[in-house]
């Protein structure tokens, strides 16, 4: 292998690493901690049930086993007002991005009855 081709190879590898780094930063993925989420979930249990599956009535969604990124997105929308719900806005107001990610990690890993519709295809 010539010196030039070695240099080309290593610069490519460097570029790939840099690209991966940039991508993960761009996605802004905050890693959720499910055990921290369990602790923070106590106020949510009043309506969604302790595990996010035994809701107190049908107006509140089941969230156990729901996709974490969907749950995170929903909570962010309640926080920024894109999704308008007075109850949820009040709860998420004081929570930061890490708190929301922790809650999403906790509920998404609970056992629930939610499934997609792939069984219909």
């Amino acid at each position, binding site marked *: 292998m010539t010196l030039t081709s070695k240099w080309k190879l290593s610069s490519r590898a460097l570029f790939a690493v840099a690209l991966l780094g940039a991508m993960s930063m761009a996605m802004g993925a905050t890693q959720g901690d499910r055990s921290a989420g369990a602790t923070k979930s106590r106020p949510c249990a009043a309506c969604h049930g302790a595990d996010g599956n035994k809701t107190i009535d049908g107006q509140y969604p089941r969230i156990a086993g*729901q996709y974490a990124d969907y749950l*995170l997105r929903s909570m962010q929308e309640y926080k920024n007002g894109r*999704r*308008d719900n007075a109850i949820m806005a009040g709860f998420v107001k004081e929570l930061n991005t890490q708190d929301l990610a922790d809650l999403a990690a906790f509920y998404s890993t609970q056992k629930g009855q939610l499934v*997609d519709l*792939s069984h219909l295809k």
Partner: protein
Amino acid sequence: MHPANLRVAALTLLVAASSGFAQSTPTAPADPEATPATTIEAVTTTATPVPPAAVAPALVGDSKEGRLRVYTCTGCHGIAGYRNVYPTYHVPKIHGQNAQYLITALTSYREGQRKHPTMQAQGESLSDQDIADIAAYLSSAAQH
């Protein structure tokens, strides 16, 4: 024309006009002798905006109809792990969800209160009965 005849004609016109007004009101009282005050009150009551949720009668969803309606939903919700893009996140799992929550979600999309271009477009094609049917099916066990 004699002045007296003119007065009669004018009076006839006036009566015709006012009775025409009474008939054009949506809730014209059955009693033709009803005073104008009653008519105005009826119009005012009818015009008062009432939130749709308060007047909508509770519809009974038909899960068999809903089963047919959700065929469209499978385009996104029926692909395991399917993601929304811009922004990227998983399309939610909806089978097994609570009926009332689903009704609120679909109605909010239809009315533009909840924002998502695809879901708003889907919502616009659905009647209250369609939504109740879909909610009845999706809230039932996912075995069929």
